[in-house]
């Protein structure tokens, strides 16, 4: 029961933190670019504002357009529920594993793409086509990275992986894990539409992917989609932190350990979000048809990771 309550609290924490992570990344980027930047809390204000606005729905849209934001949100929430945030004891391990998480994210992507196609605008179709292409090409990398983790830990369940890495720190700093981590990070950039694959700060640009799909959305639907996107970014960052470097995560459900673990995960998120901001300031956006090359690099890294995991299992 305590574990279940904690899992629910973790989910709430992750969803509540998500806009903050986005706000913090934007703030660091602004500082690095020599601007003052909006405060870290700006995304929360934007969400409150957009939730209160009225909606304009395209007359060419069908009920899929209404369903898409709900399914995108639901799939992101379900995926977030699987992620161990502060404790390795995951009731969610009974629900599903990393593959289930990947499939839930694909469910969100599928509906996002359908929502983009539904109003019948050229931008929407363009975004959907590109999003699905990038998502499909990212799949093999993620699958191999999961395999590399599963070979050393004997399971694809998230809590189990974090637990095994904690128990055998030698594995965690071995080549298998390090390479899988690098592969995962590149795949994560593609999954969440960050630079150099997609530019999260762009509107009205022919290169956009995610923003092109949600162009027709407004009001509460837009707020849901923005929130879901922020949650997806945060959950993947937490995943990176707790799968590959789970140190500091609570192994027992007691107030002291959990409180310390919350502090640790906040610190990890700060580090990862800062890294993300630095990366996004340093690199330029890749041409769309160069993206597969980057994904091929991450695939090769993942394959190397899996190969070296064979020898350290």
């Amino acid at each position, binding site marked *: 029961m305590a574990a279940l309550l904690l899992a629910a609290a973790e989910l709430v924490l992750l969803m509540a933190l998500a806009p903050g992570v986005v706000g913090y990344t934007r703030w660091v980027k602004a500082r690095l670019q020599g601007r003052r930047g909006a405060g870290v809390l700006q995304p929360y204000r934007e969400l409150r504002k957009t939730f209160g606005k*009225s*909606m*304009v729905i*395209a*007359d*060419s849209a*069908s*009920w*899929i357009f209404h369903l898409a*934001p*709900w*399914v995108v*949100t*639901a799939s992101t929430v*379900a995926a977030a*529920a699987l992620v161990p945030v502060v404790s390795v004891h995951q009731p969610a391990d*009974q*629900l*599903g*594993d990393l*593959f*289930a998480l990947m*499939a839930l994210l*694909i469910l969100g992507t*599928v509906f996002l793409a*359908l929502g983009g196609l*539904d*109003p*019948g*605008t*050229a931008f*929407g*179709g363009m975004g959907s*086509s*590109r999003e699905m*292409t990038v998502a*499909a*090409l990212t*799949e*093999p990398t993620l*699958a191999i990275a*999961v*395999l590399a983790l*599963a*070979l050393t*830990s004997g*399971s*694809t*369940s998230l809590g189990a992986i974090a637990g095994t890495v904690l128990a055998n720190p030698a594995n965690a700093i071995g080549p298998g894990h390090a390479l899988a981590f690098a592969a995962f990070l590149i795949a994560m950039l593609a999954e969440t539409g960050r630079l150099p694959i997609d530019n999260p700060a762009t509107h*009205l640009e022919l290169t956009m992917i995610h923003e092109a799909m949600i*162009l*027709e959305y407004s*009001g*509460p639907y837009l707020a*849901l989609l923005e929130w879901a996107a922020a949650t997806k970014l945060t959950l993947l960052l937490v995943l990176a932190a707790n799968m590959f470097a789970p140190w500091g995560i609570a192994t027992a459900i007691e107030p002291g350990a959990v409180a310390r673990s919350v502090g640790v995960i906040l610190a990890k998120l700060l580090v990862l979000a800062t890294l993300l901001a630095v990366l996004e300031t340093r690199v330029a956006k890749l041409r*769309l*048809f160069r993206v597969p090359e980057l994904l091929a690099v991450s695939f090769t890294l993942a*394959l190397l990771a*899996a190969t070296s995991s064979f020898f350290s*299992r």
Partner: protein
Amino acid sequence: MTIPDTLLLIFGALAAGAIAALVAPSGAWARRVSLASAFLACAAALALGIQAVQSGAVWIWHSDAVLSPLGGITLRLDPLGAFFLVIVAVAGLPASLYGVGYLRHLDARPRGRAVHALMNAFLAGMYAVPLADNVAMFLFAWEVMALASYLLVVSDPEDETAAAAGVWYAVMTHGGFLALLAAFLLLAPDQRLEFDAMRATAGGLSPAATMAVVLLSVAAFGSKAGLVPLHVWLPRAHPAAPSHVSALMSAAMVKLGVYGVVRLLFDIMPPLPLGWGALLLGLGVLTALTGVLYSVAETHLKRILAYSTIENVGFIFVALGFALLMRGYGHGALAAMGLMVALLHTLNHAVFKTLLFLAAGAVVHATHASSLEALGGLIKRMPHTAVLCLVGILALAAVPPFNGFTSEWLTFQLLIAGARYTAPSLAIMLPLALAAVALVAGLAALSAVRLFGIGFLALPRTEGAREAREAPLSMRAAMALPAAACVALGLMPTVALTRLAAVTSDLGLPMGQLDTGTSLVLPLVGSRLAPLAIAALLGGAGLGAAFISRGRRTRVRIDSAWNCGRIIQSPRTEYTAAAFAEPLKRVFTGFYRPMHEVTVDVHPASPYFVRAMTLRADVVPWMEQALYGPVVRGARLATDLVSRIHTGSIHWYLTLLPIALFALLLLARWIR
């Protein structure tokens, strides 16, 4: 009802339906009676199949009275055969219900009766294949199935592409038949053409004979299943048939190719050297990748689905090859798991592909268009068909909580378990297979989104799509059956999985006690999946999202689409199916070898004034050209040579007769 009674009911009903189709007083009655008896036969087959899988008992019956020159016929109902009865019934049940509304336009035409009769014959052939236990019966049933489906493919005399597809199909299926015959003759000791005799003696075959048998049977059954490079007939023939027959061909008939491989390589043959499992696994990966890449580039609705069938057959063969590999390696539990996953995906694919072909048929029926570029906006004109089709699309995209996801998840777990529990030398190829399977799953999602998003959403692109009418009730009811099965199998996979354990243990690969709860828990797999709980979580979160976005009084205004300030929105500015696939075509240029031809017609006064521009873009089927081009040219050459002796002179023919007779006698003497 006993097993013989039920079989009598199944085949009796099908025969009565076929006869009724030919003699009924009117076309409408021919349609109703033949489809009703097909429906009855399928219901009986479904019940019999489920019951026989559950009981696990084996029933054998032999008669010398029929086909006596070939040693009579032997029927055998075991869990494996019964499972494939279920597969055929799962497709046949909705297909026969669907025909009631779908085939109404054939009432006034003479070929309508032939289509109804052939459909019953086709079903009878497909039900007889998994029951056959000797060569005579098996080949007879196989040929009935092939001939009936061939005639159904070419049943529309006005369709010229169907005639060409028929030629491809006839050649491939008879090539397969010959290979099958050769394999059986090699297997049969002293001409005893009973499967039971083969089971006893197959272990004693020489390595060369084993190799020949495996290669011949994989070629024969693989050509039926659509294994690359023997798949070329499939995307031609499946779309050419009427849609309820396409569903039967794609969902059931190709699966009998899978059945043949399982029967021969897992039941009759002893464990094989590792190379054969690796070959099957490699062919599966190649098939899945080829199928999905072509399905993404295709714009013809039913051809997209046919290519997706090839992809899914590849998926099945990955698991089958894995099982064969592990059986040869001596890891019984992994082999059992591989076989189980292959069979489960066979069922899952049968269900959702039936649904999708029936939905495609409804679309073509309503719009008289089969290209995605001519559709659009159907979700408003055909709301029920759209919802049912969306279920199939989500199963095809392998997203939770639908049944396609379950088999994908199990395939991933299978390959990981293989990599964990075997020697590195063997396991090293499994990550590559895993990567390929993941890529295929991702591309299948893309293909699914494209099919639904371009076909059903946005604005209608042609008059046909604008005027589309919702399908008749019988067709919608027929689609609802597999749609419900997609959801049920997705939410409660253990119901099917625990039954499949009986099939694998009957083949000597015991699976052990399986958890019968709602979550998927398997031995050798370190993680679990609870589809029902995930669905509940999704539902709860979705309701919450709906509540916070629409629960309060949100003002909603309907207006024209914004599209970044563009004022005009017309179907001409929509994204097309070709455009949707364009990024992928660029990524896989080496595979597609796309061809672009731009012709610009300029004004005579100045080259800067363009009058018209045409663009022709296509994908070059180089694999087909390279493999089948020489064969076709060779066949042409040979027939040209043969035609030279056809001079038309009766004296010459009379001279040829005794020469032929003499040559045959010499040959017979030489063989002795």
